[in-house]
């Protein structure tokens, strides 16, 4: 058993006071010592700012002797130039108005010129009549806090710089993608006498090269070739195939314009180049335009397709229909391609539209847009020239909004309608 009973739990004011009295000598034996060596700086100034009293803690922080400051310097003299200005314009007026100012971040200048970040709180002491007598100020060391703030600032600046760098890289990528993308398409469609042409290219993302392509070029002798296709996949690998496909089609058509022969050549090139676990293929519609000879009499068209959605034909009589090329297989997957050829004619007022499946595969609230809706849409347009048809389909693509997640190419070839006889017009 212990010789002394443990202290009873504090139950009344008397026992609390006894405890406080017991520990007081251990804590503080002198108010003066507490003032001098407190863990913060204390200073008092006259109302004009002249330092009247400074505690030992602050003197040691600043490296001054008491006699260098008291009665000789003003509080503002201890501040940096920026701090002086702030003191003059904000701190002092606020103190005068409110009688106290709390927790202002400032920098004190030590005797050796070093700067000490501090938090300053000042209170005006008044006499019994309310007249201001002096200013009492506590100064708290804020070096840790400043270091922390600076670390935060530094981290923020680093993050902002990284963000800007990422933005710059992204912009650069977009530029590169845009330049390469343009190289996969003709800069402008050539003028074909007696034919109106229009095209639109929608890129699903500025980050990725699209795999769709189209082209229209002269074969000489009143013959022209056009094509529109879709290479599988996206990105640089697909773009490389797109470039290969487009240039192969051009070169092959120059050599032998028979659309079936051109697609066989393209098939062989892709089949031999890409095999195994990296199959690269495309769907294509390729056509040959032959002017019928006389002006305004239209064009004969030979179309060959390899696994591509059927072309649309908008007739002058207001009807529209698909021009299927059934039986054609994706170009590039079989050693010997299977290509089907169809012939048709573009009469004045007729427009042929080629497109990629981004258009029909667009997601709508009622599911994929689909062939039937597309046919209904263009049937309502017919008769319609190349330019207004592409405009209408571009508007349709835009109406899909986020539902359009694939690249889409559209190419329209139309023969201008015959000018209708107008009995009131005078002959020219």
């Amino acid at each position, binding site marked *: 058993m212990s010789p002394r009973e443990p202290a009873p739990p504090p139950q009344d004011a008397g026992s609390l006071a006894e405890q406080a009295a017991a520990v007081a000598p251990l804590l503080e034996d002198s108010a003066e010592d507490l003032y001098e060596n407190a863990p913060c700086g204390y200073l008092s100034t006259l109302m004009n700012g002249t330092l009247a009293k400074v505690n030992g803690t602050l003197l040691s922080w600043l490296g001054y002797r008491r006699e260098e400051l008291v009665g000789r310097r003003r509080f503002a003299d201890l501040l940096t130039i920026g701090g002086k200005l702030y003191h003059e314009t904000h701190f002092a007026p606020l103190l005068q108005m409110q009688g106290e100012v709390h927790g202002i971040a400032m920098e004190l200048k030590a005797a050796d010129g070093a700067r000490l970040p501090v938090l300053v709180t000042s209170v005006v002491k008044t006499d019994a009549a309310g007249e201001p007598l002096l200013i009492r100020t506590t100064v708290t060391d804020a070096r840790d806090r400043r270091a922390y703030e600076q670390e935060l600032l530094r981290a923020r600046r680093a993050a902002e710089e990284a963000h800007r760098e990422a933005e710059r890289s992204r912009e650069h990528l977009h530029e590169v993608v845009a330049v390469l993308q343009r190289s996969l398409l003709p800069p402008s469609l050539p003028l074909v006498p007696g034919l109106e042409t229009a095209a639109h290219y929608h890129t699903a993302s500025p980050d990725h090269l699209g795999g769709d392509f189209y082209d229209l070029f002269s074969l000489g002798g009143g013959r022209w070739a056009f094509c529109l296709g879709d290479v*599988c996949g996206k990105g640089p690998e697909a773009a490389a195939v797109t470039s290969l496909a487009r240039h192969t089609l051009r070169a092959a058509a120059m050599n032998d314009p028979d659309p079936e022969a051109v697609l066989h050549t393209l098939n062989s090139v892709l089949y031999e180049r890409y095999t195994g676990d990296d199959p690269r293929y495309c769907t294509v519609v390729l056509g040959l335009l032959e002017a019928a000879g006389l002006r305004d009499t239209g064009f004969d068209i030979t179309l060959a397709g390899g696994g591509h959605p059927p072309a649309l034909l908008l007739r002058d009589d207001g009807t529209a229909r698909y021009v299927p090329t059934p039986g054609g297989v*994706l170009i590039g997957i079989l050693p010997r391609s299977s290509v089907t050829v169809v012939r048709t004619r573009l009469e004045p007022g007729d427009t042929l539209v080629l497109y990629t499946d981004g258009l029909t595969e667009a997601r709508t609230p009622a599911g994929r847009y689909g062939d039937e809706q597309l046919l209904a849409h263009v049937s309502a347009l017919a008769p319609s020239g190349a330019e207004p048809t592409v405009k209408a389909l571009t508007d349709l693509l835009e109406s899909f909004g986020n539902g359009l997640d694939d690249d889409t190419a559209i190419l329209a070839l139309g023969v201008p309608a015959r000018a209708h006889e107008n009995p009131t017009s005078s002959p020219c």
Partner: protein
Amino acid sequence: MLKTTTRHTPDGPVLDVHGDLDFHTVPDFRKTLEGVSLLRGQRLVLNLAGLRFCDSSGITAFLVARNLAATAGAEVALTAVPEPTFRVLRLVGLDQVFPIEPAERAGADSA
């Protein structure tokens, strides 16, 4: 989302495809395909009964399967092809390239 399970039958492996074959899931599907062991003369069946969506990436995956099988001296068949995917296959002419079967043949039960 895509889940593929592999079964082995006397005629060859059967891959049951559940979910979407698209740009995001096809890389995994291709890995699965590459891990399937095929013997000369066998038939790899892709059972598409559980296929919900298939885009051009999925079509490419079928072609990868076909090329892998050809390398092994085997063949590939598609079975239970959902109508939307069948329309795409017909559009791009792959109905002429792949044997397409309405449902699994008898004897293709789990080994």
